[in-house]
């Protein structure tokens, strides 16, 4: 217990907020200082999140480093943060990619740097908070905090059609999350009615051992499902994603794909399954079918996308289908694979969006048809792009493979047919990625790119600095997936034990 | 002075109805303001009557009526000021022309 006494979770969560407040005090002309402050805040959060590893014990069940302060005692609402392997992994993913995204924003963002960085840091607060909150009310607050800065980031610094995209994104996600709020309140009232006290009515640790009435479970799970499925996004609730990605600035896309999509999957694992285990089992077959559709459908639609960002967006739909498949198959390797796949997708897709951003910086275009032959003028870019293309299609030795394989393994254990369907995606993902790569990187230099002349430069040191950590992570997690798997083993068994043996009957303790 | 509360209340109700009708039917803003005054006075009348007949109020009704009159005076002042301001703008006291609340 080296760091005992330090409220580390709060430090991690609110370090970016401190940065945002400091930036607010700096006059906007001093852009250098603003950038420096933002990056420092993000790096502090990153270092603090790594410090969480020091005292973390992967072999202990339940939550660690819990911080608990009363907030609205009348209703038993608390400020309560806690850590287990799953949240630890995702928090580190968030702080890593946030720091990288902030660094990646320095070039492309040309106006209102101050407001942009403040938004971005607040976004980070929300994201980390979601992964750490153990009080359902607090969780909901963080969940909605995420929405506001993202709304601004897409709506102000986005592309030409940004207003449409950002409104669609916000309204779509709000529909889901408001229903979730209703469900949260319903569970709290039900808990209060059963125990006669508001104490603990929003406390996840108390609620997760409480057997809710099956009817309530079914409805509340439905509400949670809607909120999470929209965020993941699952077929057929995915259409906000391509629009949001296309219009968002590069760093926005990176965070959106790498971290925000994980909120939904995390919600399933952390809240929906343990709170409503019976309903989860009732819903599971339908969700598995939707996941399979998403896997195949996303990949097929990605094949014919004319826009680089849209292609990656649809590939996200396909990849996240693996995550939901792994979650709802209720099998140890499947769930472990799903969580690993969340991390992998974050790293790899984040990197792909960074790389699309790099080419967009030079060409101000993302149309695949206009590209071609990038290998000759920009060899470093081509090599790194190729690396992540291969990682995304699940090449062994890189991180994407292990997660996908574990999900397939778990799925086959439960339903060989489902596994067979899902496996076909390894052809499709190779097809859309390699076809895209061939058209963008191979061949003779296209006329459009030739017209750019000396503007078509290879990656700058700053851009290299943003992707190199991701290259390292991809290789490290491919060669030693135990880094993540060892951390998540215990919470995975806990979740599955809860789903496998639900408390029968409506009465609580 | 009648010994029955009902008579006062019926009169008050009639006055209020006349005021309501005037407010809805007249198109002249000044006349509408006057109708409002009529309605307020109808209410005043019922309050004073209650004050006289309900023992527990013990004559406090008159005090309440005084407050209502003060509010009515203030309302009339502001209302007239607004009407005059709009009149200067629109050159008509007829409310049919005052549709800018629509947008």
């Amino acid at each position, binding site marked *: 217990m080296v760091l005992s006494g330090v409220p580390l979770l709060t430090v991690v969560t609110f370090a970016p907020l401190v940065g945002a407040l400091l930036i607010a005090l700096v006059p906007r002309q001093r852009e250098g200082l603003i950038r420096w402050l933002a990056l420092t805040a993000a790096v502090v959060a990153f270092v603090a999140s790594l410090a969480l590893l020091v005292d973390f014990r992967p072999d202990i069940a339940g939550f660690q480093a819990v911080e608990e302060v009363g907030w609205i005692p009348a209703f038993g609402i608390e400020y309560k943060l806690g850590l287990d392997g799953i949240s630890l992994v995702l928090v580190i993913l968030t702080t890593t990619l946030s720091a990288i995204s902030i660094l990646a924003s320095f070039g492309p963002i040309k106006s209102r740097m101050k407001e942009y960085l403040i938004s971005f840091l607040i976004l980070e607060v929300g994201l980390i908070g979601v992964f750490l909150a153990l009080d359902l009310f607090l969780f909901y607050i963080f969940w909605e905090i995420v929405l506001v800065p993202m709304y601004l980031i897409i709506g102000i610094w986005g592309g030409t059609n940004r207003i449409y995209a950002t409104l669609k994104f916000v309204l779509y996600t709000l529909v889901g999350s408001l229903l979730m709020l209703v469900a949260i309140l319903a569970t709290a009232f039900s808990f209060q009615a059963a125990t006669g006290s508001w104490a603990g009515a929003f406390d996840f640790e108390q609620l997760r051992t409480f057997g809710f009435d099956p009817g309530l479970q079914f409805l509340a799970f439905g509400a949670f499902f809607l909120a999470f499925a929209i965020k993941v996004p699952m077929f057929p609730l995915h259409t906000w994603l391509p629009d949001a990605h296309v219009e968002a600035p590069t760093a926005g896309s990176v965070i959106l794909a790498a971290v925000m999509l994980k909120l939904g999957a995390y919600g399933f694992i952390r809240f929906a399954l343990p709170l409503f285990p019976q309903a989860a089992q009732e819903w599971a077959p339908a969700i598995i079918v939707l996941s399979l559709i998403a896997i195949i459908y996303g990949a097929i639609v990605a094949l014919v996308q004319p826009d680089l960002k849209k292609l990656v967006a649809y590939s996200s739909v396909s990849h996240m289908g693996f995550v939901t498949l792994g979650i709802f198959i209720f099998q140890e390797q499947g769930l472990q694979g799903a969580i690993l796949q969340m991390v992998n997708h974050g790293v790899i897709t984040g990197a792909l969006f960074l790389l699309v951003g790099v080419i967009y910086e030079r060409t101000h275009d993302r149309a695949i048809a206009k590209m071609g032959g990038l290998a000759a003028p920009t060899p470093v870019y081509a090599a790194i792009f190729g690396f992540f293309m291969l990682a995304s299609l699940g090449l062994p030795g890189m991180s994407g493979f292990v997660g996908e394989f574990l999900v397939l393994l778990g799925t086959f254990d439960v339903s*060989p047919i489902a596994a067979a369907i899902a496996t076909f995606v390894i052809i499709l993902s190779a097809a859309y990625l390699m076809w895209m790569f061939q058209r963008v990187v191979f061949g003779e230099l296209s006329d459009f790119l030739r017209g750019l002349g000396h503007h078509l430069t290879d990656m700058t040191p700053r851009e290299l600095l943003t992707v190199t950590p991701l290259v390292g992570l991809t290789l490290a997690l491919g060669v030693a997936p135990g880094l993540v798997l060892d951390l998540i083993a215990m919470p995975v068994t806990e979740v599955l034990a809860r789903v496998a043996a639900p408390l029968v009957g409506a009465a609580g303790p | 002075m009648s010994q029955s509360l009902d008579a006062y209340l019926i009169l008050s109700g009639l006055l209020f109805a006349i005021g309501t009708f005037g407010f809805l039917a007249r198109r002249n803003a000044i006349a509408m303001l006057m109708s409002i005054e009529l309605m307020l006075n109808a209410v005043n009348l019922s309050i004073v009557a209650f004050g006289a007949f309900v023992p527990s109020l013990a004559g406090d009704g008159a005090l309440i009526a005084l407050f209502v009159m003060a509010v009515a005076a203030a309302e009339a002042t502001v209302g007239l000021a607004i009407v005059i301001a709009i009149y200067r703008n629109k050159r008509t006291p007829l409310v049919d022309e005052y549709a800018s609340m629509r947008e």
Partner: protein
Amino acid sequence: MPFFTAAPEAVPGAVSATDQALVLSLIVLPLIGFGLTALIGRRLGGRAWIIAVAAIVLTWLAAMVLVYQTLFVGAFGEAGLHVLVYEWIPAGAFTVDIAFGVDALTAVMLIVVATVGMLVHIYSIGYMAHDPGRWRFFAYLNLFMFSMLLLVLADNFLLLFVAWELVGLCSYLLVGFWYRRRSAALAAKKAFLVNRVGDVGFTLGIVAIWTTVGTLDFGQVFQLLPEALATGAIEQWHMIGICLLLFAGAMGKSAQFPLHVWLPDAMEGPTPVSALIHAATMVNAGVYLVARSNPLFAQAPEALVVVAAVGIFTAIMAASIAFTQTDIKRVLAYSTLSQLGYMFAALGVGAFIPAIFHLLTHGFFKGLLFLGSGSVIHAVHDEQDMDRMGGLRKRIAITHLTMLVGSLAIAGIPPLAGFFSKDEILAESFKLGFAWVWFIGIVVALMTGFYMFRLMGKTFYGPSHVDPEVEPRIHESPRSMTVPLVVLAVASAVVGLALGFPFENGILHGWLEPVFHGAEETLGHAGGDYQLFGIDGTLLLISTGVSVAGVLLGWRFFGFLSRRPQPEAVERLTQRLRPAYAFSKGKWYFDELNDLLFVRLGGLVARALWWFDVHIIDGTVNGIANLTRSSGGGLRQIQTGHVQNYALGIAAGLLIIALGYLVVVTR
């Protein structure tokens, strides 16, 4: 008795540090070579090959020590050498180690992989000397050697699959090496995608194995799966299913019908790549996989029949296409398909050792033929069309002589290498009761001799059709290219005699017997005595006879040594067999079929789904939004802006409330 008897956890203690280091060096050396060449190769300029070639020469030395230890000294016994590096995937009950195993089968594979690999590296020094991207080339080659060695050393299915994909990646990178050429980029992509089709099966096969026995370790799987079958824990169809799924992967990697379409296109890569990856090593991975899984396949004879049928069909189909191709490398590519078909046919009939024997000899003579064709292409300045060659015999004498040895070897002329291995395959299939395999095999043997000497005739003999501008500049290749040719020619000449004589009882049989003994026993293949003056002699005579006949036919039409080619006779023949000729020339129209099915039809489906996504799914979403907005717009009409309308509403509301109150009170 399965070949792996020792429990794997008992083994590591017995492994000496030297052996461990030796095995690891096989993996690490090429990896270091790759890393260094990729990082600083560009700065080395013309000497970009130095690190890569040095790494591979060292690897070869290590491999040969290991081979010597395994095969000649027998230092590791029947169980072989097992090295555990670390636990790769710890996912609850599912754990996979990075672990290597060296047994006789691996050692035989090492001979081919390390030797041909090294020779190709040396050859490439000369071949790629003028290519500005040579540092990239050597980096990829080293990466390939790493992957291929990983493949033969892997001690569990998942690690094998990793290597399987990595060699596929290297193939992708090297086929698409000249990425500016659209055809090269397309061929690279095609190769990878077609392989992935097979990988679907392979992946499912691996997953099925784990869900059945809970381990992927070779030794345990080969012990537990047959046991599960014996105890009735799984049914026969389960075993057949697993074997067929594994075979699906093998079909992709070893380019068996109908997944053969990628290999001819893969000839877009530089010729040393064709020799190394697409002839001698990577394409054999499928054969290796089936041979390695022999304890499983032995339990599923039905699956073996499928293997045999696919193999022998591929053999005759590819041979028929090789008849009419004019691109020198494509002829060799189809010939490779055909020979791989032989190997699978041998595996399918249960003749595991002849299959590996043929793999070994084929690795040498096909590597030789490809490198020779590279030398020819080099000589005539990047011309690959045989119609524009001819008469090169005297101009590039070393190339000609070595290729002649290779051609005779592949045709099966005694006493060269191909004769021994091919004869064994054919004889075994006949004796094991697969007369149809034997018969088709004999026909293929005849065809092989013919198309190989068609190739030789069109390239080396008769009048020259070389571009007159190039003609005076034809030259023999540099020493770095001819030396590997000579080495491979010598190997192609003697390796069969050295390892395969006496028939069916050569040294190789002694080496591999322990590996396949269990499977052969399960299949009931009791090895009878070799009867030179009985059935075996007759079969030997027949197969030799058809091989010679094939060569003579080729000689008859396309000339050989002093005989002039007969273009008129060829013309008459093609006229008479017009449809068959067109069918062969059109490669059985597989590319057109695939184009129709996957590119056009698949593209249509994808576009239709995209339309569905934009118009139906997103249309619904936007439809809901529009509905909300238009209903809001409708309700807005009520807001007239007239104070009195609002007041009327208030009054009406008041009235309704009052009336409602009255109703309630009077109730």
